[in-house]
């Protein structure tokens, strides 16, 4: 038995139980396919290894009951760093329903900036086409919002809502609120425009098209 153990220690590939995993691991290194946690570190400067799973982020999160994976579990899955878990994180609903209220970060004893990590995970999840289907409406809203400011430099609420509804194919939600918004003078029909709107388009061109979304 002992002989067997030293043999395995010297030559891990002889261990039939671990060999498959080790081979896979080797293949990943060869492909220079770095794990998501390394990417998170490169792009946000945040070390997921700092997390010791106290759970304060999840306890304070106003939306943890809406999430499919709890915030502290997101960090745990990133720490493990397997391909399967990375995929699970990127295709989670959690990263999209997060409101960036910053409570988790404010309460984290290790000051892990989970909102910054989540921001990066969102852009990476879109880049790899892994975004959760349930989050379509939220993503459509973000896209309609950015589309609105890309065009005129300022948000045009009426245009935003129309743009969102066309994307979400949900034309009738909220129509009841619109008339009272108009009578209260809260909805305008003429968009405000930045004079130098070509500069705003340039900013979009030079950022969105040019990097991974992180640092």
């Amino acid at each position, binding site marked *: 038995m002992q002989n067997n153990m030293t043999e395995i220690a010297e030559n891990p590939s002889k261990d039939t139980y671990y060999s498959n995993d080790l081979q896979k691991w080797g293949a990943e290194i060869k492909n220079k396919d770095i794990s998501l946690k390394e990417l998170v570190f490169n792009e946000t400067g945040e070390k997921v290894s700092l997390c010791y799973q106290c759970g304060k982020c999840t306890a304070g999160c106003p939306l943890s009951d809406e999430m499919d994976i709890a915030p502290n579990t997101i960090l745990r899955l990133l720490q493990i760093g397997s391909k399967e878990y990375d995929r699970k994180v990127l295709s989670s609903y959690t990263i999209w329903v997060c409101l960036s209220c910053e409570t988790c970060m404010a309460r984290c004893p290790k000051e892990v900036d989970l*909102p910054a990590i989540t921001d990066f995970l969102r852009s990476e999840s879109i880049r790899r086409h892994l975004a959760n289907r349930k989050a379509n409406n939220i993503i459509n809203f*973000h896209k309609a919002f*950015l589309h609105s400011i890309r065009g005129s430099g300022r948000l045009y609420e009426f245009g935003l809502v129309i743009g969102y509804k066309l994307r979400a194919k949900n034309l009738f939600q909220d129509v009841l609120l619109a008339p009272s918004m108009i009578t209260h003078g809260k909805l305008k029909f003429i968009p405000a425009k930045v004079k130098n709107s070509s500069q705003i388009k340039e900013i979009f061109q030079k950022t969105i098209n040019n990097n991974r979304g992180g640092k």
Partner: protein
Amino acid sequence: MKIGYFPGCSLHGTAPEYEASLKLVAKAADIELVEIEDWNCCGATAAHSMNRMLSIALPARNLAIAEKMGLEEVVVPCAACYSRLLFALNEFKLDEKVRMNLQPIIETEFKGNIKILNVLDFLEKYVMDALKNKVDDKFKKKAACYYGCLLVRPPKLTNSERWDDPLRMEAILKKIGIDSIDWSFKTECCGAGLSIARTDIVGKLSGKIIEDAKDRGADMIVTACPMCQSNLDMRRGAINNYLKKDNNIPAIFITQLIGLAFGYSEKDMQFDKLFVPISFSNNNFSNNNDNLKMQKSKVKEVKV
């Protein structure tokens, strides 16, 4: 005295009463608010959800223009804009890569020598002194001061001392004779960015805030953010749906109250823009059911 002013899209869109009241309050305190020329949207949640550099470049352009105009301080009344502008300035100061890359993106010189004030900073610094002897009996009401997320968090960005239980609004309101309640939801999130995509979540989060304020005997919720105010005020449908009962506790901007204390009328402070009505006139604090019914019938008329 002149101070820079970044209104942001909300104050020109869904929160005109916030801008009107802030400007009149500034005028009463002898401050001229100089709007940043040709300002653009800060990008809000959408930009930082999709691309970090975009979320820095959009606010940075505004700050660069303000600097060019010779402004030393900028007051940013929207808490979401405040957070994004502060974030951009902070990243510019701390991250060398941002400093190197920003210039060619925004095509404007930016040195990072500008100070950003939120509305509470502004009121404390420039308006508090003018509020001496402004205690008024008509204000003998209980307020629930609601800060929301981004005025206080993340603490390392906002430098707030009591980020979990701030007392700054309470101190300002005390000056005009308004007492505040002690409650648990003053820094809870209202649901902000999900207002359109997941209105049910806004109903739940804002509903909890409204319920706690009411349970603890508040007569009104006082806010300092157009996102919070619009969710708490306009989303009553979703909120009442979640709470399974009608609630008539109004949500009002802190600047509207201070404007009243300076002697402006409720019309000047655009009280008519609030969905849930509130009035301090004739010592008759009315936010009662009659008003609510009236408001509902008004909405019905419009629908027809």
